[in-house]
């Protein structure tokens, strides 16, 4: 117990110590978080009237971001599966950072919801035992269940492994491996449930399509590796983390599969909507071409499509992806493209036109944008702190007995110390 308290204090110590640039980075993020905090206070004080949402478009940018970051959370499986199923050592070194990304993404999702509901003070109504969860019928209740499970699992696995490594002990396989395998299936479930949450609604023909869950999973499999390439490059640059080139190769090979499939699924959707030509295609018309003179979204969706097609070409053509700047550009465009397609390209048009045919457009206002950026900044802040501690422990800089040998017996079972390898 005493050990654990010391451990916690040492972790905090590790987080607060850093270079000037590190403080600058944390400070900038904190500034955004602070602004978002004020904005949230404003919302709590005056009601959600301060947003641009209405009874017509009753979910906005918050839910759009929620859907996107569920994909990021599920995308951690891109690291977990090769590390534990195919025993790729190069990826095993990084898998904890992937699991922590899932923790951060899930936490962000919870914040997107918490700031979006009308009565955050009543969220305890969702706690089984003291409140009610409407199971099995409400998909939102299922979302609460799978999110809590995924969060706990992804906190437990890296938490346990890191603590063991810190103490120089060999982790017991039974303590974490079952959760690792469960979390792989669970990663699919969080995104599937989120897709079902939308596709199960007969009232919204735009979402009411069985292709939504596969689309979500594939687009998560596209945006997560692109994001991880950028993230690991940044960590490599700023924290001196050694990431083998084979890891980037692996991400690119995943992207070569998921990006074309994602485009294919978008194409399937587009065909079904426009070829059938039923009135149910109204939302799709609104998204791609505008409806009855309302045309806020087409410019965004066509830009996103262009980004995704461009990135797909870069990933597929060996000569192009070999050019580093072009490859990074493609990764950036993938992140933006998928975010647009999956967030505003999916959530907003679901509400336009409304079930009675009325057309009210929605674009987030400055307050909503600040709030959402703040949540992303808080995620980045959390991730920076967690990654810093993780890297310190894995390198052996943070240990229970600083004087002891860096390699405890049997420590090979633990992800090898990053930085010492290769």
């Amino acid at each position, binding site marked *: 117990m005493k050990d654990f308290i010391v451990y916690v204090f040492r972790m905090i110590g590790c987080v607060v110590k850093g270079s000037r640039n590190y403080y600058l980075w944390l400070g900038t993020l904190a500034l955004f978080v602070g602004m978002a905090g004020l904005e949230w206070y404003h919302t709590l004080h*005056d*009601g*959600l*009237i301060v*947003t641009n*949402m*209405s*009874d*017509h478009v*009753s*979910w906005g940018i918050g839910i759009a971001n929620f859907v996107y970051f569920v994909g990021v959370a599920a995308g951690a499986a891109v690291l977990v599966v090769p590390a534990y199923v195919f025993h790729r050592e190069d990826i095993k070194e990084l898998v904890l950072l992937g699991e922590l990304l899932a923790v951060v993404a899930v936490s962000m999702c919870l914040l997107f*919801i918490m700031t*979006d*509901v*009308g*009565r*955050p*003070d*009543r*969220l*305890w*109504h*969702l706690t089984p*035992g*003291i*409140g*009610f*969860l*409407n199971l099995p*019928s*409400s*998909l*939102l*209740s299922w*979302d*609460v269940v799978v999110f809590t499970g995924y969060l706990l699992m992804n906190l437990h696995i890296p938490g346990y492994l890191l603590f063991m490594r810190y103490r120089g002990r060999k982790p017991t396989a039974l303590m974490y491996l079952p959760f690792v395998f469960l979390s792989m299936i669970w990663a699919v479930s969080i995104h599937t449930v989120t897709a079902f*949450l939308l596709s199960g*609604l*007969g*009232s*919204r023909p735009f979402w009411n399509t069985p292709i939504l869950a596969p689309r979500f999973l594939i687009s998560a499999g596209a945006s997560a590796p692109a994001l991880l390439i950028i993230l690991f490059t940044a960590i490599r640059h700023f924290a001196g983390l050694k990431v083998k080139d084979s890891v980037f190769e692996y991400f690119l090979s995943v992207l070569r599969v998921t990006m074309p499939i994602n485009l294919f699924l978008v194409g399937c959707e587009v065909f079904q909507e426009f070829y059938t030509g039923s*009135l149910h295609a*109204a939302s799709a018309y609104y998204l791609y071409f505008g*409806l*009855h003179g309302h045309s806020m979204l087409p410019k965004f969706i066509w830009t996103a499509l262009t980004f995704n097609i461009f990135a797909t070409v870069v990933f597929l053509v060996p000569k192009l992806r070999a050019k580093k700047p072009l490859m990074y550009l493609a990764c950036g465009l993938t992140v933006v493209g998928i975010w647009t397609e999956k967030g505003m390209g999916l959530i907003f048009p*679901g*509400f336009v*036109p*409304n*079930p*009675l*045919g*009325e*057309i009210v457009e929605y674009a987030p206002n400055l307050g909503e944008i600040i709030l959402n950026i703040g949540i992303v900044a808080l995620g980045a802040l959390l991730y920076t702190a967690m990654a810093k501690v993780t890297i310190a422990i894995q390198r052996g800089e943070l240990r229970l007995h600083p004087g002891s040998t860096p390699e405890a017996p049997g420590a090979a079972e633990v992800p090898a110390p990053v930085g010492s390898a290769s």
Partner: protein
Amino acid sequence: MKLPVLPGASSGCGGGGCGGHDHERGPSLECAVEDRVEKLVSQRLEEPGTRRDILRGGIAAALGLAIAPGCTTSEIDEFFQKHYRELKDDEKKKIFARLEEKTRRRTGVTVHITDPQPLEGVHFAYALNLSHCNGNRRCVEACARENNLPDDPQMRYIRVVELDNGSQHLEKGTTAYDPEKVPQPGKFYLPVQCHQCDNPPCVKACPTKATWKEPDGIVVVDYNWCIGCRYCQAACPYHARRFNWVEPEIEPERVNPDQGYLSNRIRPVGVVEKCTFCLHRTRNGRYPACYEACPTGARKFGNLADPHSEVRHIVENKRVWILKEELGTEPRFFYFYG
């Protein structure tokens, strides 16, 4: 054979098998009603458990201490208020008194909150004669006054769509027509409000069981349990639910003091609300406000389970149709031409 009006009193409708009725007319309707009743019974929440109370008591005590500074007793009570269906009579009394006091302080009006219970053997239904409706929107305004809706034209339970003759293409219609200049030639008018579905997508969607279907067919919301996630709004195919984006402000002279806890009492900010067929009126033998306000006689309301009621006669004998029937929501709201 008289139609069974009490839930469970039927002999011919068990197990979902509804064939073989020797009733002269409308056996399928009778079965539909009975089947719906059965579904309702099975949807009831579980009985409140003591474990739940103990757990909640402990957490309440702990949290109460933590947040007590700066909070009034009534705010703390409101925070820990239980789900409506777990409340005992004395608890309800206290809550109603607290809400009445709150309204008195805010608006200066003394209101009376009651909690009329569903009547046995009553299954409310609405029928609307589209041949008579001329889009004057008296129903919309009467509803707003009856139900303590703020002065915001968006906060209305009834929306009337003006459509071109020959089409039900809703996108081509409009709700923004001038009600003083009706009926327009070549147009017809489609009022839409909560359809009190027997298979309500909103109830399925609610993550906290804050909205449910009462035995008399009315879908209600516990405004003190709703977390304001608005999933029910996304789920409703009739655009029938309204969210309180802002704390509702009602001028004192417009406050209707005759209030039902589950219907027209003044709602808090951040929760969803909807038409309840004016249950504070209809459960006391009165008609809904929209029915009384309609100058054309287009609106018909009554007990579907009563074989002599007007709505029953219409549903059995008129060419009745349902909005978006393909969605399987089984509304209690019928349209007809007559």
